[in-house]
Structures are given as structure tokens and as C-alpha cells.
């Protein structure tokens, strides 16, 4: 079975600055795949090359079986793109904008159903420029999925959202994924990658530092748990692969371990280690 996205040795430079270096990537059909990395790591350059919005300098790239650098209209009908930021069509209403984009495709969702799906039905008559940041992003997604794409690109979809809006947005992404859409998203929010993605690629310095499920990524990088407790006024901390055993030994004589906590490494710890920030 071939992948929805297959990248081998992709490179891209802007002048002297190399944004992406010999990057390899595979995204399976039906996956939610997150590209995670700090600002300037090459996330957006990568996704823009895959969308067909940028030319690469070198490497093999296949998206839905075609080279995005040369793919034509019918390929673009099978993908959906949510750009990083946009401020277009402010003077049209939400419904008018959805209608206009539906006309670009052979088969499209009915605009009213589309707005219902992304939770914008009550704003369908509002001018786009009056929408809040979260509503605006929902419209961006609506325009990206108007023709039920097989593959949806989301470039930093929730930047600037409050936690509530972010959670609602994640629910929308899950609905699309359950519907069978392959989703590639870039994010610099760890919890977003952890909450949504089947697999995460951590990118640093234009290269893939690691690819795996969020749980495995965390486990691979460091599996040791940290046990903390108070002994008198002193904070004690121990790294161990066997926290239960450690606690049993420490409390065998009936001692109460004050303020006992056991923490597992989070994706954040793995991420910081992989991107060389820890």
C-alpha cells in the first residue's frame, strides 16, 4: 500500500539559509499526522511544498500519487488547504464565500451543510471581516473541506486560540478524520500534537528528528519516571524505571511520604530533548 504522502531527500533553501535539509516523511492514508517543531524549524516550508505552493530545490515528493510541483487541477480538487493566515474576502458574507468556493469544484458540500459542520451556521449572514479569530479559522477549514478532500493540510490551525476554542477546533478535526480524511497539520503546540495526532514528526533545523506516535515518542526518549516527596523540609527527587518498587521500599517501615508525586515524561520533555533545547 502506498502512502498518501511520501517525501525522500527534500531540500529547500532561501538564499544562503537552508530551511529544509534532505527531509524524509511518510504519511499513511487516513492518518492524522502532525509536524511539530519550534518556529523556523522548516514546518511551513515543508507543508507549502507538499501543497504545491512552493518549489523545492531537490528530492522526491509524492502527494496522493502525484508530484505537487507539477500536479494539475484534478489533483487540487482532491486536496484541501488551510493556509497559515489570511485576511481575504472580508466584504463577503460567510455564506457567499462558501458558495463562491463550492463553485470551483465538480462535487461540493452544500454551503449550508458545510457551515453547519464547522459550527458557523449562525454566522452565515455575517461579513467575514466581523468574525472572531476562531470563527475565521473555522471558515478557513470550511473552505478547505468544501469538496470533501481526501487529504487536508492545516498550517498552524489554532495559533492564537484560547483553550476553549482550541478544544472545539480539535473536535472538528476529529470529526473530519473519522470521516476518512487524511490530515497533515503543523503546530508548535505540543498538547495539540499529543491530543490529535496518530503520529508526530518532530522537526528541528530542517530535518526530522523523530517520527512516532505521541506515546511512543515520549517512551522512546525517556521512560524513567520521576518520584518526588518531602523529607522534613527537604525536597527529594529520584529517577527510576520502577517507581512502585521505589515507593514500596521507602514506605516499608510505615513512613508516610509527604507530598508524594510520580510523574512520567511528557511529550514536552521528549520534544525539548529532540529539538536540542533540553
Amino acid at each position: 500500500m502506498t502512502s498518501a504522502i511520501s517525501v525522500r531527500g527534500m531540500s529547500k533553501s532561501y538564499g544562503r539559509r537552508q530551511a529544509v535539509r534532505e527531509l524524509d516523511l511518510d504519511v499513511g492514508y487516513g492518518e492524522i499526522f502532525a509536524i511539530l517543531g519550534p518556529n523556523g524549524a522548516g514546518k511551513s516550508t515543508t507543508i507549502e511544498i507538499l501543497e504545491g505552493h512552493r518549489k523545492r530545490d531537490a528530492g522526491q515528493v509524492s502527494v496522493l500519487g502525484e508530484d505537487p510541483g507539477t500536479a494539475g487541477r484534478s489533483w487540487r480538487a482532491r486536496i484541501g488547504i488551510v493556509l497559515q493566515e489570511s485576511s481575504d474576502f472580508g466584504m463577503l458574507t460567510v455564506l457567499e464565500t462558501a458558495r463562491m468556493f463550492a463553485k470551483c469544484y465538480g462535487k461540493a458540500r452544500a454551503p449550508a451543510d458545510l457551515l453547519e459542520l464547522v459550527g458557523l451556521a449562525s454566522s452565515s449572514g455575517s461579513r467575514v471581516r466581523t468574525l472572531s479569530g476562531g470563527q475565521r479559522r473555522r471558515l478557513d477549514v470550511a473552505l478547505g473541506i468544501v469538496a470533501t478532500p481526501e487529504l487536508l493540510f492545516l498550517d498552524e490551525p489554532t495559533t492564537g486560540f484560547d483553550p476553549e476554542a482550541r478544544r472545539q477546533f480539535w473536535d472538528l478535526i476529529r470529526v473530519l478524520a473519522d470521516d476518512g480524511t487524511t490530515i497533515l497539520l503543523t503546530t508548535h503546540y505540543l498538547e495539540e500534537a499529543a491530543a490529535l495526532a496518530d503520529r508526530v514528526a518532530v522537526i528541528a533545523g530542517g530535518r526530522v528528528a523523530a517520527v512516532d506516535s505521541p506515546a511512543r515518542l515520549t517512551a522512546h526518549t525517556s521512560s524513567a519516571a520521576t518520584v518526588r516527596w518531602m523529607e522534613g523540609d527537604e525536597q527529594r527527587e529520584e529517577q527510576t524505571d520502577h517507581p512502585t518498587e521505589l515507593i514500596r521500599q521507602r514506605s516499608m517501615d510505615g513512613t508516610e511520604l509527604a507530598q508524594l508525586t510520580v510523574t512520567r515524561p511528557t511529550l514536552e520533555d521528549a520534544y525539548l530533548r529532540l529539538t536540542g533545547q533540553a
Partner: protein
Amino acid sequence: MAVESWEGAAVSRHRGDDLQPALPSPVCIGLSRVVPEIKMFYRRPEQLALTFSMPAVICLLLGSIFTAKLPGTQTSTGAVIAASMLAYGILSTSFVNLGIGIAADRETGALRRLHGTPATASSYFIGKIMLVAVASLAEAVILLLVGVLVFRLHLPTNAFGWFTLTWVFILGIISCSLLGIFVSNLVSNALSAAVITNGPAVGLQFLSGTYVPLMVLPTWMLIVGSIFPVKWMAQGFRSVLLPPQMVVFEPAGQWEHGRTFLVLATWSIVGLLACLSVFRWSDKR
């Protein structure tokens, strides 16, 4: 192996579209964009007011200054200016409007978003050109009303006059639109586009006989003005809106329909080639 576990779960979820529905043609997509383009245009009142009132107001002001009749005629200099002002009107609805509008579409991401769909560049331009056609027609009606009611211009009374008016109008729109599209590619934002379109547009009015009659211009201004389309559009409009005897006040002593056609057609072709070579969807490389 880790890879198998995710593939198994994911593949069962994938919905592949085996049957691709036929795509609408680029022309169909372009036509579907006409009404939204017009809505986006008229929902900006300040832009609307500027585009439509500027030429009319300038026409009224200049016409009120130059009220004296030209020697041996019943026609005032104001009427000559009013007939020529139609060229300025078209320049602002095509060149200025497109130069700013396309730069704005690139700046806001509208063009990039469209590029991610099956729409083509021609779809986009069909929408824009139809917008220019509608806006230019409205502008022409306003200026002709001012000209006829205030400056006693005469609408053509024969088919030949209407024919001349029509082709000058259409070729003028095409050449100025293409120049506007070309200019929009030279700048990176709408603000620069406003400067780089309005500046030359106003300057050209002085060289092209729309603000000041051609007969008072020094020769070098006349020569520079003759390079650009506005002078020829204005001359074409004067040839059908002024009484025939006014031809003696033209620098060449004749209306020069053939040359007008050649200049406007050349600008259209050069403009098209220039646009094809520089058009880009976004500022990203």
C-alpha cells in the same frame, strides 16, 4: 513493528474517492466569481466613492474654470475636457482598480487560497475583467450624463459614432486593465499599488489632454503623452462626442482613428505578454 500498528488503524478509516467528478471549466469558475467580485467592490464605500466621483468632480471643476468658447465654435473648452474625461474614468476603473485590487488579493492571501483549488489564473481574471467591464460601464454612464447635462455634449447620432465609441471603450479597458495587472506584480502590497497606480494616472492626465486641452501643451508633453493609451482614448471619445468641426483643434488636425486603434491594440498585446511573463500567485518563492 510500530509502523504496522498505525497503518492498520488508519487504512480502515481512509475514504478514497475512486470516482472523480468532472471539474467545472476554468471559464465556468471564472463566471461564478463575477457577482462576488462586484459585491466585494461595491461594499467598500470609500473605494466606490473615490472611483466614481473623482473623474466626475474633476470634470465639473475644470469645466467650470474653462467656460470660454473656443474661437469660431459654439463649444467650450469645458466640453472638450468633459469628452476627454471619459478616458480618465476608464483609467481609474481599470488600471487603478486592478492594480490595487490584485495587489490586495495577493497581500491578503486570496490569490493563494484560490491557487489551492481547481480554479486557474484565467478563472481569476475572468472575474476581475468582468468587474472592470461593469464598473467602467457605470463610470461611462455617470461621465456621459455629466457631459450631456452640464457641458452639452452630443451622444453619437449614427451607427458609426456608436461603433467608434464602443471599440475605443473596449480597447481602452483591455489595454489599461492589462497594464494594471502588470503593475500589481511590481509591488508587494496594496498601499504601494495605490501609489504606483494613482501617481502615474494623475500625471498622465496632464499629458493626455484630459485635465488640460492638448493645444496648450508644449511639444515634449504631447510626445510623452502620445506614448500612452490615455491620450488616444480621449481623442477617440472627442471624435464622437464633440461636433465634427472641432477636429481643427486636434494637434494632428484629424481624429486619427487608425492610429488610435493601432496604439491601443499594441498596448493590449504588449500588456498581455508582460502579464503572462510576470504573473505570480503569491510573494513566496
